[in-house]
């Protein structure tokens, strides 16, 4: 299939994948002497689940950081929705509808689960300082409106019973789930997930997969996903980018990637079942 074609197509399981929403062009990112990303280009299409895989230290997380504006690449361009993105602060990127989760959980430890998820909606809350200081009226109404949205997500992710718990006390796996909830609360166009299933057992991974698929399906959210569990990657993703030592060594459908010798050598070891 032609990567650059703007046309949409329909997947075997009946989802519609649209045109390219985000395109990375010749990205190079260096930290002093370390080259984290070397001249990588790839694109993400509307509505697809795009996986990024590769050995440890390949530069996957760095790539997500470039997309969310936290790292500024030395070379290359980021195109979003058909236009070149100027240099942006991370919060501006978030304002464009890109939300994410983090590899080393980055929840706000001092707040409850509910408040953490509510922070996901901050880009959407518009009342000013003055009306918030007075609370009754606009601010309260807005709060309740958004609270309702958040409650939907809480229901969706089945974390009702920990709503008021401070996140610091949660076990690892639940924290990951709360992070996903926070990202979902932003109602993103593009959702970036960095190892959402690390530290989970199969059952929990299944749950997580279900959430990811549902988000993609119900809201049409485009998802870019980093994951080391090949089973998950192969099952969920539409297309996979493989990185190694900062370089792209493969890009294509799961099956294509699975058969790619370079990928097998660098990452998969033996062909995965």
């Amino acid at each position, binding site marked *: 299939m032609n990567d650059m074609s703007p046309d949409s197509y329909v997947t075997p399981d009946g989802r519609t994948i649209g045109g390219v929403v985000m395109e990375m062009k010749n990205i190079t990112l260096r930290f002093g002497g370390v080259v984290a990303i070397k001249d990588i280009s790839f694109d993400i299409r509307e509505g697809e689940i795009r996986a990024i895989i590769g050995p440890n230290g390949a530069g996957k997380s760095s790539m997500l*950081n470039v997309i969310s504006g*936290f790292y500024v690449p030395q070379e290359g361009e980021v195109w979003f929705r058909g236009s070149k993105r100027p240099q942006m602060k991370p919060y501006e990127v978030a304002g464009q509808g890109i939300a994410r989760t*983090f*590899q*080393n959980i*980055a929840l706000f430890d001092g707040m409850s689960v509910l408040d953490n998820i509510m922070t996901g909606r901050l880009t959407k809350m518009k009342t000013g300082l003055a009306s918030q200081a007075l609370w009754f009226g606009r601010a309260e109404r807005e709060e309740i409106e958004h609270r309702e949205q958040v409650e939907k997500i809480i229901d969706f992710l089945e974390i009702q019973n920990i709503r008021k718990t401070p996140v610091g006390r949660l076990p690892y796996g639940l924290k990951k789930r709360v992070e996903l909830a926070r990202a979902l609360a932003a109602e993103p166009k593009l959702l970036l997930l960095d190892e959402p299933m690390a530290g989970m057992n199969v059952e929990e991974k299944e749950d997580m997969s279900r959430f990811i698929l549902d988000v993609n399906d119900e809201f049409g959210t485009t998802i870019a996903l980093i994951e080391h569990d090949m089973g998950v990657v192969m099952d969920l993703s539409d297309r996979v980018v493989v990185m190694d030592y900062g370089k792209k060594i493969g890009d294509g459908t799961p099956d294509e990637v699975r058969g790619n010798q370079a990928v097998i050598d660098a990452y998969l070891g033996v062909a995965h079942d």
Partner: protein
Amino acid sequence: MPDQLLFAIEVTLNGLMAGVLYALVALGFVLIFKASGIFNYAQGVMALFAALTLVGIQDGQVPFSHLINAIFGTDVHHFGWHVPAVLAILLTAAVMVLFAWIVERYVLRHLVNQPGIILFMATIGLAYFMEGFGDLMWGADIKNLDVGLPQGINETIDETTYNWFGYGFFIDNLDIAATIVAVILVVSLTLFSQYSKQGRALRAVADDHQAALSVGISLRFIWVLVWSIAGFVALVAGIMWGSKSGVQFSLSLIALKALPVLMLGGFTSIPGAIVGGLIIGVGEKLFEFLIGPLVGGATENWFAYVLALLFLVFRPQGLFGEKIIERV
């Protein structure tokens, strides 16, 4: 040379010397911060306490005499002996080790793995406690500290420069002594923290208490060690400053002079303390000399902080501080 320039040079030299004195105080902060991430508010009070103890031991003062007299109606003040300076310094150092042990045993041990601000707060509690304790133990009067350090203008420099420029520079002998001591301290402490096993452990502790525990570093030992060294540094600072002004409560306020130094040099860098000290010393003295008269003087206090602030805007971790790691 024009007079104004000569004066400026003299001011600069004295600024350097003052900077060394600030650095001596800052060193204590750096050590403890480096080893546990604790911003030790009590450092100034430790200097006071050490100096009080030194004088008390030297003069054979009876500790808690005030309290004893009040309770038992006695009238004891002095043991009537006089301890030589070197011995007194050693004994005081021993007291500071004991102090470090007590702090670890009764405070720090219970606060492992707490955020920095809580630990900071604990040192404030400690400072309060020691303030009362020091007064109770040794009395609140001003004491004369004399361990035989030279003091006053250095004749040689005065004469030499007079012969050269027709204007004799003023350099205080005490400052020269302080510089020598500071250089020795900085060099040895830098070597210790960068190249010894304990030094590495100490930096590990500052990063992550739990992880340090998990690899078998004994926080207790490290803390006693560091607080002992910091206590010793406090003693040195106490001697230098106490020689200038007598030993009294205000000695604890020298901490405020050390903070900008700390900021500028970096909280975690031992050489940073000395470099920061020099910059602050020269900066504030020159500013007072050049600009002070225009704005009414007494600018040194705030100027030191503003100078440090300006540096930080460009290097948020200070000159030599460890870079603040920002990652997700």
